[in-house]
């Protein structure tokens, strides 16, 4: 877990390769696990994700002996993404500074399963704005406001075959939430 420094933000972000002794201990590019698919400068770009987190919350009053008082204000947390510094960093800063919209951001999780590189999770965020940009030496941290998300979990059986998938869809634009397979 890495605590992102900042004046207004102290987000704890889980790191993908947490627990490794050193980032100097080998090359990971060929076996990257989490990848962000995003459009920068009009071009589709795939970048390794070193840590990310997002979530949702709802407000509920805790006096359970009285009437049920739950808020309708389902809230998406900002999507926190940790990337390595590379030549795309200025393009992220430009998008941040100009209030640029990302129509779609996809983060996928890959796994080696029985000789094949398979996608096991797919998180799709739409209508997104970068609201915070921090460079931490060789890394950049982005805090991204998202309006809609579709999260797909692909089920892999023990024999390595696909066992279907489950999907959660949510929109703070329409207030519609659903699950599916």
């Amino acid at each position, binding site marked *: *877990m890495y605590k992102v420094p900042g004046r207004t933000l102290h987000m704890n972000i889980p790191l993908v390769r947490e627990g*490794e002794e050193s980032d100097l201990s080998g090359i990971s590019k060929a076996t990257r696990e989490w990848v962000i698919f995003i459009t920068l400068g009009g071009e589709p770009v795939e970048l390794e994700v070193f840590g990310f987190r997002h979530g949702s919350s709802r407000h509920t009053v805790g006096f359970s002996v009285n009437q049920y008082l739950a808020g309708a204000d389902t809230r998406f947390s900002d999507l926190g993404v940790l990337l390595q510094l590379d*030549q795309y960093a200025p393009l992220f800063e430009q998008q941040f500074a100009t209030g640029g919209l990302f129509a779609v951001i996809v983060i996928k999780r890959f796994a080696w399963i029985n000789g094949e590189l398979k996608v096991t999770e797919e998180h799709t965020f739409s209508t997104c704005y970068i609201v915070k940009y921090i460079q931490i030496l060789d890394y950049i941290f982005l805090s991204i406001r998202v309006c809609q998300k579709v999260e797909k979990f692909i089920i892999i059986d023990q024999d390595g075959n696909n066992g279907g998938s489950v999907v959660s869809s949510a929109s*703070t634009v329409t207030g519609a939430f659903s699950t599916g397979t």
Partner: protein
Amino acid sequence: MIDQYKGLEIGEDGRIVWIPLAPFPDTGDRSEGTFAPNWMIYIENAGTASKIEGSVEDSGKNLTEYTYLFGWFCEAERKVLGGAGVNLFTSSILWYSVIYFVMPNGEHSAFIRNAVHGGVIIPTINFVRLSRIDNRVVVIQSITLSTCHPYSYHSLHDYTVFAVTFIVRNNLVYGYKQDGTLEGQNICNVDLSSNVVT
């Protein structure tokens, strides 16, 4: 990984500012052994200097005009109202924090103190991230700050922590392929006086 960065905490304005320090191989402890720099900083008129060889194409200066930069921190933020069910409410305010630099004491130390005390405007600060590729020392990232107003300094034994605000920030990052050849570069220029980003 990023969680191996050591940090320097300084108290300022009733809060703690955490500045990540550049790591070193093996021990990560800069009090052991000797080392060449990973980051270097040039502060105009301050007399920053070193014996490090090499040049910075972006600033047109030699690294002999730069000194070691052990760590730095800056954050940037925009306000967007989170009520997604109605029209988009976003602010034109683009906020960049004070930027903190951790550097050794040296010829520049007296200038920095005087700059803070007297509100001396620093026309240019340039700091670079260096890399060794195929027996060459190259610049990976070059950030140039223009019209900088000194904000604070902290004296920490052999180190000086210097903080400034800035009007223009130019962020240049070079991309290198795995074979060491230059792939390209991208630049973001933010001018907070005219509110223009290019």
